[in-house]
């Protein structure tokens, strides 16, 4: 136990006391504040920090991480911009896990939980990881990643025997065989979470799944790709403590065979790719999470199912739920916290009518993401009035209808922002004319706590952006699409917004002199990258050539690592030194 002698700029508190207190402080902002107090506290924080999230992998380097936080136990690194989920980023853009895996292998002895999101992973990286940390790794999440195959997973399956969590959701994986799952089935008896949902891995054997269910008595969450439900009867019987299941499909013509399927008794989080919902009715009242994104239900089916789920807290579905489904939701699901309505392909749509009723009925709502065909100021005001717990609000206006009922939406947006005081994340994807410069100014003025924003087709001139950038004191990450703003206005905004450290823009007024205007935002420790306008030719489902025109993109971010060195051809770095 060390006792420090009192010095003029020293707290006088012994390290031992601090070390007792610090474990209770694990929020990243608290820890960041602690590390700024003085050198001693910085060192103590570095030695004891357990979890690090690197929000953007090029802001720092892996060896800086290792030098500052050698004792880190849990690491999350994110790569490609969010737009990669919508096919707007070239595949080879970057975000390689290699340097991070190498650091983990070489120096991060305590690492147990590893999560990579939207990054490029190679089989060799997985092999290095498995060989170096396979004995201790407890969780591996490769979330929306790409670049690897089932051979890489084989290494994980055979060498990572302490794995409790393996998550591959939505990754693009080259499938060579199903051996990787067989390895897990043969070697692992403590798996709790297995997830390869939304991948194309179909060569997995359901017998291996059954074996895993029998061996792993703590298996609580399994999310798989397409697999016939009838093949899983044995699996369901063996997975006695299963709480979450997603995936599978009901393809068999003889529907009475499905009566033999009994779901595990504790199942409360469910996602089925099915049009058969009656099989769910017996335990619908237990459900607190429902994923209907890949289900084949129509509006009526939605209503019938939802009214049987009074304990529902999380719902994901498509616009086929319709305004009527939202009414049923508002009446039946008073505990609803998270609702995501993705864009479907049919004619049914969700509008301000459904949203108003939803806001009035589901007062516990914290997250709302919805594609609407029509929206009014009044419905946004309702959300501001009733949804007092809303932290994350995302609205996208479809271009199905020629005009919308009520625009501009300036006043509605203002009312929503003023009413939802807890709002931290905001996305508005609209149309020209729907949110004027005045409305954009309101967003700046009335979003004191918002840290992330995605704005599409807002404002009508640079004035709007100037007004916007006078506010938003907490805004750290800004993404914009379809802007009418000039490069000069963008550079100005990047300099004005006090907390901004990441800016992504696609579609803006390029200036005639190549990018000099953008360089106005150049600062030390800030990288600016351009992806110039590209034309991509792909073939669609019917083998026809499809030409996609991608407008230019800007990505500007704060970084301690200097400019990137792993650019593909499509990306250009703006270096003011040149």
């Amino acid at each position, binding site marked *: 136990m060390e006792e420090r002698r009192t010095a003029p700029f020293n707290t006088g508190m012994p390290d031992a006391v601090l070390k007792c207190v610090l474990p209770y402080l694990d929020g990243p902002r608290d820890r960041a504040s602690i590390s700024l107090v003085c050198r001693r506290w910085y060192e103590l924080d570095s030695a004891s920090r357990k979890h690090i999230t690197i929000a953007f992998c090029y802001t720092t380097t892996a060896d800086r991480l290792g030098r500052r936080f050698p004792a880190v136990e849990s690491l999350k690194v994110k790569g490609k911009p969010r737009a990669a*989920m*919508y*096919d*707007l980023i070239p595949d080879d853009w970057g975000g390689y896990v290699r340097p991070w895996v190498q650091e983990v292998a070489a120096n991060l002895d305590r690492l147990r939980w590893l999560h990579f999101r939207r990054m490029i992973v190679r089989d060799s990286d997985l092999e290095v990881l498995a060989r170096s940390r396979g004995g201790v790794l407890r969780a591996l999440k490769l979330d929306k990643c790409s670049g690897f195959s089932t051979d890489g997973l084989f290494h994980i399956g055979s060498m990572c025997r302490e794995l409790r969590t393996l998550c591959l959701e*939505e990754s693009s994986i080259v499938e060579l065989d199903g051996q990787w799952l067989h390895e897990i089935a043969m070697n692992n008896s403590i798996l709790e979470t297995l997830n390869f949902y*939304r991948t194309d891995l179909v060569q997995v054997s359901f017998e291996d799944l059954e074996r895993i269910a029998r061996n792993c008595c703590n298996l609580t969450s399994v999310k798989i790709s397409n697999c016939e439900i009838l093949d899983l009867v044995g699996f369901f019987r063996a997975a006695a403590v299963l709480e979450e299941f997603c995936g599978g499909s009901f393809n068999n013509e003889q529907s009475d065979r499905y009566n033999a399927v009994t779901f595990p008794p504790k199942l409360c989080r469910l996602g089925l790719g099915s049009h058969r919902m009656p099989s769910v009715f017996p335990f619908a009242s237990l459900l607190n999470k429902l994923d209907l*994104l*890949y289900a*084949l239900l129509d509006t009526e089916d939605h209503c019938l199912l939802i009214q049987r789920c009074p304990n529902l807290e999380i719902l994901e579905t*498509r616009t086929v739920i319709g305004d009527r489904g939202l009414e049923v939701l508002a009446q039946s699901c008073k505990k609803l916290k998270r609702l995501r309505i*993705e*864009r*479907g*392909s049919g004619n049914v749509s969700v509008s301000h009518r459904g949203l108003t009723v939803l806001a009035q009925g589901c007062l516990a709502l914290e997250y709302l993401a919805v*594609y609407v065909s029509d929206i009014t100021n009044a419905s946004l005001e309702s959300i501001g009035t009733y949804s007092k717990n809303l932290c994350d609000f995302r609205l*996208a206006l*479809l*271009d*199905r209808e020629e005009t919308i009922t009520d625009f501009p939406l300036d006043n509605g947006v203002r009312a929503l922002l003023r009413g939802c005081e807890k709002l931290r994340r905001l996305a508005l*994807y609209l*149309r*020209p004319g729907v949110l004027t410069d005045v409305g954009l100014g309101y967003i700046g003025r009335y979003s004191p706590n918002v840290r992330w924003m995605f704005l599409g087709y807002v404002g009508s001139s640079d004035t709007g952006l100037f007004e916007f950038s006078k506010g938003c004191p907490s805004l750290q990450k800004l993404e914009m*699409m*379809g802007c009418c703003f000039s490069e000069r206005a963008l550079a100005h905004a990047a300099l004005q917004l006090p907390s901004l450290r990441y800016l992504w823009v696609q*579609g803006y007024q390029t200036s005639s002199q190549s990018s000099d205007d953008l360089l106005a935002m150049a600062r030390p420790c800030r990288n600016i990258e351009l992806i110039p306008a590209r034309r991509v030719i792909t073939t*669609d*489902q*019917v083998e*026809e*050539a*499809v*030409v*996609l*025109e*991608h*407008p230019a993109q800007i990505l500007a971010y704060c970084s301690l690592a200097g400019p990137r060195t792993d650019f593909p051809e499509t990306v250009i770095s703006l270096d003011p030194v040149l």
Partner: protein
Amino acid sequence: MSRATVELDFFGMEKANSGKSQFQRFVDRRRSFRGAISKMNPELIKSVISSGSTNLSPVDWRKSFSVPSSPKEDRSSPVPSLPILNPALRVSSEDGPETAPMTIFYNGTVSVLNVTRDKAESIFKLAVEGSSRNFESTDSSKAANPSRHQQNLLETRNGDLPIARNKSLQRFLEKRKERLTCSSPYA
């Protein structure tokens, strides 16, 4: 959002189209653009210009050639669907007091439109700006399956982008559509 780029096809870019199909497309669109369009015999136009006369009665015109009929025209006025060189025989417009006829001679075709001032200005602007860019998008839209436009593509129209869909959901919806079309081979 302005749909003016679509109107440009109407200016005779696609020479292959007959006057009737051009006209039929025009009638099908729900726009505030109103007027009578027809293709006229270039010889006739020359004779009109050389005679310097704009006062031929409609009846004489009708004898010389046939004109595709315009349902809208019939509704709006008793004067039959003739291209109007005589301002006195102007079709009464439903648009309001601000519309005036605009006559466009292009490459052997004559078109007369009743337009508001705003529309006229945008037409002038488009004509001045030229159409190379629109040529591109017309060509590329021909290459792609038209039914997919609304759903999936990122197609630029003067820089406008429709909403891109989440990749995994898009794949699911496309596969489902495939399955539905495959399951009924006789449909």
